[in-house]
């Protein structure tokens, strides 16, 4: 007992305090690293490695239908891609799809949030009902819309269109209408997300600013433009970023509703990459398409993040 007491006192006297702290901190760091390592390795194995492997694969010709032609080709897949008309079409479809769904989600979501904010009663109910589409699987949503809603002569939407005097429309068989339909489906499913985020932000806005604005006789429109929108800006930009990243890589709903058709009218880049890889069994080229999609996604979200910072 005495020995140890002397020893620790000696250490305390002879070792500078900062050194002691440094050793402790080092130990703590090691411990933290040990705790983190499994999770980090799992993350590397499940995200980083497949991603690197994807890039690696894109440098090969890997055609299951013609195995004798397989081999390293460097950037050839990307050269082919640049002159592939269907790649550009699908990229354009992706951008149109993403741009319009995100814009619609933000506008409708914000409108709904403003409406609900003014509701005196039943707000809670409205939130519960509104969130329902989000929890459905996109594949299920696709099936529901394809069979119950959009089928000409048999579906609910077509029934409404006929009654509204528009006549029966081939919702999924006409190139333009099919695009409109898949945009509507995605918007229908994901607007509640934008709505919930914006509603939460709206609720946190300070009431006294509005009070002051009212005293200054600012109109409702002025209050919305000068106060609500600027204060909501961070939330809106976040919604745009999150929804854009998801819309760019959308898959399940379009796959079940139109399969990219009619023809290639709703074939987003993701779907084209999937078809090349798994239907046409051209794995190398499919990987190049997936990498292209990755690059597009990174660029667009980079721009959006930059916009968020710029004030």
């Amino acid at each position, binding site marked *: 007992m005495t020995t140890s007491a002397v020893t620790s006192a000696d250490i305390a006297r002879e070792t500078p305090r900062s050194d002691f702290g440094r050793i402790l901190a080092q130990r703590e760091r090691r411990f933290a690293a040990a705790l983190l390592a499994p999770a980090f390795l799992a993350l590397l194995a499940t995200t980083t490695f497949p991603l690197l492997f994807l890039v690696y694969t894109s440098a090969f010709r890997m055609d299951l239908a013609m195995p004798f032609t397989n081999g390293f080709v460097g950037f050839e897949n990307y050269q082919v891609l640049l002159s592939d008309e269907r790649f550009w079409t699908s990229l354009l479809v992706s951008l149109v799809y993403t741009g319009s769904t995100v814009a619609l989600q933000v506008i409708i979501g914000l409108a709904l949030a403003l409406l609900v904010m003014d509701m005196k009663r039943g707000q809670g109910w409205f939130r519960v009902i509104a969130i329902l589409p989000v929890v459905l699987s996109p594949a299920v949503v696709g099936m529901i819309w394809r069979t119950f809603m959009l*089928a000409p002569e*048999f579906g609910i939407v077509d029934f409404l269109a006929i009654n509204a005097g528009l006549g029966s429309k081939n919702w999924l*068989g*006409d190139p333009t209408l099919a695009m409109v339909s898949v945009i509507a489906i995605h918007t229908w499913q994901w607007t509640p997300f934008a709505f919930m985020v914006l509603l939460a932000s709206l609720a946190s806005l300070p009431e006294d600013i509005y009070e002051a604005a009212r005293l200054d006789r600012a109109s409702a429109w002025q209050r919305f433009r000068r106060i609500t929108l600027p204060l909501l800006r961070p939330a809106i930009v976040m919604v745009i970023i999150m929804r854009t990243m998801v819309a760019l890589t959308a898959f399940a709903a379009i796959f079940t509703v139109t399969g990219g058709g*009619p*023809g290639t009218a709703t074939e987003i880049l993701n779907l084209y990459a999937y078809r090349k890889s798994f239907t046409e069994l051209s794995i190398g080229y499919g990987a190049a398409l997936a990498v292209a999609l990755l690059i597009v996604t990174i660029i667009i979200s980079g721009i959006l993040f930059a916009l968020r910072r710029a004030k």
Partner: protein
Amino acid sequence: MTSFKPTRRTLIKTGTAAAALATFGPTLLRQAAAQDADLAPYKSAKIDWQQVSGETITVAVIPASYFENLITLAPQFKALTGIDVRFEKIPPAQIRQKSVIDLTSKTGTYATHAADPMYYALYAANKWVEPLDTYLKDKSLTDEAWFKLDDIIPAWRSANGIDGKLYGMPYDGEVTIQVYRKDLYDAKGLKPADTLEAYMSNAAALNTPNDRVWGAALRGVAGAGQNMYIYPSIFREFGGDWMKGGKLTVNGPEAEAALAWYVDIMKKYAPTAAANWNWPDIADAFSQGTVASYIDAHSSASVINNPEKSKVIGKVAYARWPKGPSGKRTTSIWNWGFPINSALPEKKRKATWLFIQWAASAETQARTAHRFGGPTKRSGVNRTSVWKDPDYIKLMNGFGENFVEATMGALQDDTDVDWRPRVPQWPAIGDTMATAIQSALSGQATIKAALDDAQRRIEPMMRG
């Protein structure tokens, strides 16, 4: 709390035991039922069924009644051979991809799987599956006199062969025929069409959308087994040749005429929604009485005769696929066959072959069809002899007038094994063509432009 614990444990125990009994009880009963007398028809084959006893193999099938019936009989196979079979059910949309991935990686997960006949060219080019003749000719593995390969429907066999070599054993198959509403046809004094022209005029005569009856319906949704299940037959009937001068050709005057016929009938006389329909949708619409006639797989007969859903039972009749301008009938033929995965060790390959031989044998075919205890009817048995069995004929004719004659006629005389281009690149070609057909149907491109574009896209696939 403590006094509740034993009670709960007992409850769980009892529950588990009951659940186990409920799950395995029927299997145990069936296993007990698989007595020597039951196995006698198999034991008459002069081979040692027990030669690789103790092996376990995994078989991928699709969730369909004709495979369910086979799964039910698996305990008999176990009793006969001592081989354990584990079945994995994968929906048809995914089974091709899953099996291709398994074959590419050479892991041998699936000893055999329900295979698409159009994939054998790909399988054979990669040597992923075994040529079956080695197994058929091996006297220790096959008793040819007992198995009777020649009894298996020749059209399906040739569809599963490449350059005369058999790679997959047909288990269940189909052929396309005309399905029509006899009552509607009789009311207008119409006969089932003998030519594509007559089929069009029949459809015109019966097309009354205001009464919610459309003249015809063909598969419209894009996909290699969807609109590309029907169009290739029309293309061949218009005199089209996939391998014109040794070069894969999908455009040209015959193709344009064929696609024009297809687009014409779909636009004028089919429900608009049919542009996105596959066979179950068509069969559903027909069973609801909204479609007067369709051309599709004979196996959809079970859907339109489902007493719980169909409103047209007793009003259905069948005929062979109409002739085209070339004077030929070319039906679409199809079967689910079983190949042997080359990545397996020898003993497992033998076990797999014994399983395939058992499943494709006349005895098992009969036991899963008219002699099956359950309610489901199999309309795709693989053997000519079963199709001549009075009991089976009786069962099949329950589907409607002329069913067996139309099906057998189509299977024996109207097939053309090259009704689709059988090349390893088929998955890509089929998908490209399917997209082209749909873009012509939807008006996204003209018929000529759609086909020329498909040709442009297909050429580099063939060059390699």
